[in-house]
Structures are given as structure tokens and as C-alpha cells.
């Protein structure tokens, strides 16, 4: 297998349009929870990348002022320190699996985004397990993993690669090499494993005196492909008193286009359009039909853009 190269070394995080859209959608949905949760008082736990894109957005848009960045590559420490955009970010040179058990869950309401660029493995599952065991009422958890079968290597070797990542016992019996190679099948398997791990762990969570049983209320399920196929699952741990919380905050089928509480996912499209086309489509959105006004823009690209136009980044070449 080729050595693992962090995705930020392949491409500027900021220039990945679907990732960019995903970040904005996560922020938008979490912002809706603000009136119930008081997001400003939350601690954000995220994974390291010298671009700190998620940290920047969450601090700017949600005013989260207590942030922990987990970076496992000790060699990157100096660069990570140098790139810290705000001084409210505490950089910890430690793998997430080792940090999460010692995070102060009981005193700090927490939003954790385990934004991995690697395939799901037992270590990531154990991170989910720790969060689900340690979380408090209204802890927010988002996890992203690579779900691209090509990352498992060549056809014929993919099942054994998967068994190396998840352990032989961690791979369901009906999974075959051919099946994981099918478009979206690996993502479906990872979705099942992720939600199963969270559900299983939180159901056996030890409760403090007076604490009520929690469950994981999923509201995000993204798939997107900037280069590799990525899978994101997000939600919040709630108790029975919070039954209507999401609905009351406008996180529902009715109020949020990308609300996905189950195995149905929202595909973040990456329309291939010029700037002129983007501006033109903006001018005929959101009301009415675009038909007849497309000026030669392919219809499927226009339809894709309609789903994300409010979030789509407009990159320009700029010199600073």
C-alpha cells in the first residue's frame, strides 16, 4: 500500500468545493441549535490541518471561543503552531483516540468533528465509542471518513484491506470484494458501522446520578466527491426531555433541505460551471423554473447548482 498522504498535502482544503459546502451546511445547521444550546459556550474539538478551515469558520460564524485541535504528527507541530488563526485554539499533539477519554466532558459542552480523511478503521470506531460513552446531554458529534473503494487498493485485494482496517470480525459476513467495489456500497457499510457503534455505546453508557439516558439524534448524512468519495454523519446526543428540540430549532425535513436522519444521504454536488454561468444562475434562482433561461448551460449542472447555490464557493485568483 502507498504511504498515507494527508489530504491537505494533496489539495488546498479551501479549494475543495464540496468540502467547503459541507462546512457551511454543518455550521448553518449547528447555528440553528444556538437558541436552545448557546453554542458560544461550547468547546470545539477538531482534527489538525494547517488550514484550520473548520476552526476559522466555527469561530467566525458561531463565535465558539474554546477550541482544541488534535494533531497526531509530531513533526508537524511547528507548522501547526505557526498557522493557528486565533489564539483561542489549543493545539494538542496527540491522536484523537488518546485525547477523547481525557477531555473534560462533564464541565465543557462539546462539539466534536472527527474530520478524518482516511478510511474507517478500528481506531476511528473507538473514538466514536469514547465520545458516545463520555458525552453529556446535547454533545454534538460529526464524523467524516473516506469511503472510496479505490482507497482500498486493487480489485481482488479490497476485502483483505478492509479486514486489516476493521479486523476480520469487524467486517460483516455478506461483504465481498465485489460488493465493496460498487459505487456507494463502501459508504453504506461505513454508515452502518458508524451508527451501530454510536448506538451500541450510548445505549450502555453509564449514567451519573440524575442523568437521563441519551440517544444519538442524527440530522446530517452527506456524501461528496471532491476527489475521493467522502462520508459524513452528524447528530446530537439528546435525552427524552429534548424530544422536540431539533424540530423546534428548524432542523427537520420541512425546514432544512439537507436534513438526513437516516441512511438516506444528501449528495453534495460539484457542478462544473464558469463564474459567468454561476452569476447567471444566481440571477434566476431561487424562484420559478430555470428552463428556457439556461443559455447553453447543461441542465444537470444547473440542477446540481440549484441544490447548493447558497453555499457554493466563488474562488477567484487573488494576490496578497
Amino acid at each position, binding site marked *: 500500500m502507498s504511504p498515507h498522504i494527508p489530504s491537505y498535502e494533496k489539495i488546498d482544503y479551501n479549494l475543495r468545493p464540496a468540502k467547503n459546502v459541507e462546512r457551511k451546511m454543518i455550521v448553518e445547521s449547528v447555528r440553528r441549535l444556538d437558541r436552545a444550546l448557546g453554542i458560544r459556550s461550547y468547546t470545539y474539538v477538531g482534527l489538525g490541518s494547517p488550514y484550520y478551515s473548520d476552526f476559522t469558520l466555527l469561530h467566525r460564524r458561531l463565535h465558539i471561543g474554546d477550541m482544541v485541535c488534535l494533531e497526531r504528527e509530531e513533526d508537524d507541530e511547528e507548522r501547526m503552531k505557526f498557522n493557528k488563526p486565533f489564539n483561542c485554539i489549543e493545539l494538542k499533539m496527540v491522536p484523537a483516540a*488518546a485525547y477523547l477519554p*481525557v477531555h473534560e466532558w462533564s464541565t465543557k459542552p462539546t462539539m466534536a468533528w472527527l474530520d478524518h480523511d482516511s478510511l474507517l478503521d478500528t481506531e476511528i470506531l473507538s473514538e466514536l465509542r469514547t465520545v458516545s460513552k463520555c458525552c453529556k446531554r446535547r454533545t454534538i458529534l460529526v464524523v467524516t471518513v473516506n469511503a472510496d473503494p479505490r482507497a482500498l487498493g486493487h480489485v481482488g485485494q479490497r476485502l483483505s484491506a478492509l479486514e486489516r482496517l476493521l479486523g476480520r470480525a469487524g467486517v460483516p459476513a455478506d461483504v465481498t470484494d465485489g460488493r465493496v467495489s460498487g459505487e456507494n456500497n463502501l459508504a453504506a457499510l461505513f454508515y452502518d458501522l458508524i451508527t451501530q457503534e454510536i448506538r451500541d455505546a450510548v445505549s*450502555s453508557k453509564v449514567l451519573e446520578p440524575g442523568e437521563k439516558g441519551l440517544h444519538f439524534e442524527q440530522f446530517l448524512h452527506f456524501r461528496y466527491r471532491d476527489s475521493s468519495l467522502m462520508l459524513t454523519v452528524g447528530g446530537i446526543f439528546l435525552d427524552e426531555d429534548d424530544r422536540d428540540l431539533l424540530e423546534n430549532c428548524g432542523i427537520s425535513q420541512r425546514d432544512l433541505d439537507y436534513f438526513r436522519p437516516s441512511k438516506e444521504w444528501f449528495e453534495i454536488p460539484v457542478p462544473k460551471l464558469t463564474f459567468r454561468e454561476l452569476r447567471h444562475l444566481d440571477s434566476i434562482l431561487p424562484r420559478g423554473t430555470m428552463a428556457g433561461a439556461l443559455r447553453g448551460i447543461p441542465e444537470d449542472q444547473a440542477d446540481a447548482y440549484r441544490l447548493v447555490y447558497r453555499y457554493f464557493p466563488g474562488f477567484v485568483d487573488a494576490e496578497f
Partner: protein
Amino acid sequence: MAGSESGSSEPRTEIIRARPTKEFFISTLVRDIELIPSIADLVDNSFDGAIRTRPDRNFAGLRVSIEIRPDHFKIGDNCGGIDPDIARNYAFCFGRPKGTPPLPHSVGQFGVGMKRALFKLGNWFRVDSSTSQWVYFVEEDVKAWSEDEENWNFSMKGLRPAPGDVTPGTNILVKELNPSVSQDFARIEFKKRLMEDLATRHHEALREGLVIEVDTIPVQSKVLDLFASPRLRPGVRVYDVTPLPKGKSVHVRLVTGLFDGGDQNAADAGWYVFCNGRMVLAADKSTTTAWGFGGTIPRYHPQYSLFRGYAFFDSEDSSLLPWRTTKTEVDEDSLVYRGARDEMAILARPVIDFINSIKEDTSQIHEEPDLGIVPVDSFAASQTFTAPDMAPRKKPKTEVTVSYQVLIREADAALEAIGARNYREMGKKTFRYYYEAEVRR
């Protein structure tokens, strides 16, 4: 097919024999347990007797005496004896019958320990029991008993009202020992092994005052210690798993911290698991206790020799505890245990972080001011593991590796000239030669 000869094509129901054979109990079941744990099982029965006799758990004056000889084995106690009714209906049954009177917080559980131990030890046994009201004995020649597959009964002999001077208790004698048992009993180090084993397995019973002696030498309770100081506090997690079947609960107490008993091989490092005070797992360093299980805790490595973890599971109803019949393993299928293992990993993590922070320099811990040794039992309330900041001390570097490339023929010639066995030695010798001649003067 056999059935087709009868000519009838009607489907029928026939009887399949599924009842156990005596051989299964005498020869098969005993393979699951080693000799010493099976002796510990017999001590469990005495301990349960002690709990029954003294529900307040004041065990003063109660004792279990073991005698091991190459030709016989004896274990006797003054812990109340087996009531004839219990003996008739429960104690000698293979497996625990439904309706067995419950004994809260007992360590006997499966209805298999005593019989399995008797068969493991030898071919002839006699169990004498006296309660405050009755005396009797049960005596069997196992070979003779095993020959009649139909009759599973033992005989209760000499049943009569207890004389006034009787001490309620049970005495077991086993003779015609199995050859390997006889060989073990003859070895001079066996007694020590047995005593050390009983000291940890029955740590709780000993601590509570029950006397266990082997050939009249009392077994000393092995105290389970952790380091503590004003800056160093073990991590403790206490909780109840409830509700469980029958409305019962399991009380779980987990403790993690540091200790160094001067044991060079770190054999004592790891997790210790107890069920109702009975140790079922000692110094475990496997995935069973979360080492290398997922990514939370690394695989065990000798650098973690300071790590100590203790997991205590207690329940009024011992059937809810995560142990297996041999009491030398935990039942990893138990949901109580699986939940606890996650908590064990979380509680172990800060200890691992601390050990990582001092690297291999474990001796530093001994320089901690006011470092004390505190028994594990004294930590009863949940608390976070805290440890002082100890940066690894850099040992001043005194040596350096020098490497360079030279022509093979020149190296070989120099090797021969200076009389070295290999290039490495030649390198050292040539350097030493130059140093002595040109540098040190």
C-alpha cells in the same frame, strides 16, 4: 435410509439420547480447570459457608485448613457445615438446580466447583459435614460409581443428630490421587505456588479475617496497593449497573493508578478483575482488559510496567457477575463487562499518558514528594486521575556512533593486521589505537 425399509412414508418422531454421561463429568469437565484453581473452588465453598454463618461478615475465628500430601488431599473448615437438606437437594447436584436457596454476595455460583475439584484430585473421596443439628458423611469410590450409568446417587451415611461438642464445619478427604496431582503435591515448590495463588484469589476473604492455611501455615492476604501523593491521585469510577434481571444490580468499582513493587519483569502490571471479592483475572495485559482494543489504549508494552488497574464487580446475585465457571477468566459476553471495559479504557488513558510523559524513566516516580502507598480498597468515590508534571530527564549523552565507508580490501587487510573478528571490532580497535597513540599522550 434406515427408515425406508419399514415401507411407511409417514414422518415420525424418534427419541435421541441426550443425557449426560458420568464420563463427561469425571474426565471431560475437569480438563477445563487447572489444579490450583480447582482447589480455590473448594475454598470458595468454605467461604460461602462463612458468609452463611456470619452474615455480618465478621469472620474472626473461622478457618480453612488445607493439607497436601503425595497420597492424599484434605480441606477442612469450621464454617457451618452443609445442611443435610442442602446436601440432599443441591450441594451434590451436577449444576445448580432451580430453586437453590440464594446466598447474597456468594462466590460459589455454578454448582460445579466441588464435584469438579473432587474428580480432578482423585478417585476416592469422603465429605464429612456437621451442622449445629446434624452430622453425616458422603463417601464414594469414583471408579465404582462411574460404572453404573443409571444410578447417579451418592449415599449420605451416618446421619444422626449432632453431639453437643461438635464444631459445625465440613472436612473433605481425597485419596487415590490422580498421578499428575500426586506428582504436583510431591514437588517442594507446589505449596508456595498454591499459597501465593490463594493469597490473591481470596484477597477479599483474607482481608475480612477468614484464616486460610496450607499445612498449618497461614496464607497472608496480598495487599493491593497504589502510589498516592498530594499531587498523584488514582482514577476511580464507581457506578451501578441497574436494572438487571430480577430487579438486581451490579456494583462496579474501577481504580487505575501506578505502582512499582520492584518487580523487574513487570509481571504484576496490568488489570486485576474481581467478582464478589474473588479474583478472576490477575495482571492481565490483553484485549480482555482493553489493551490494544481499538485505539484508546495501546497494546501492552513493558514501558507500562507501572500501570495497575483494578475492577471490582459486586452483586447480591452472583449469577449476574461477569465470570466463567473456572473463575480464572472473565465472561466477555457479559454486557456488564463489555460496558465496564469501555470505562476501563477511558479510566486507563490518563495513566498511560502520564507513563508516556516520563518515557522509560520510571524511577522518577520514587522521587515524588510525600509518595505513599495506599490500599486500593480505600478508594471508594469517583475521582479523576491526577499526576504531577514530570518531564523526562534527558540522560547526558556519553557515546556516539561513528560510521564511514572504506574499500573492502583495505578493511580486510586492516582487520587481519589488528586481529579483529569483524569490521565492527576492527573499527573500535583502530580508533582506540589512534586515540592512545595520538590523542591521549
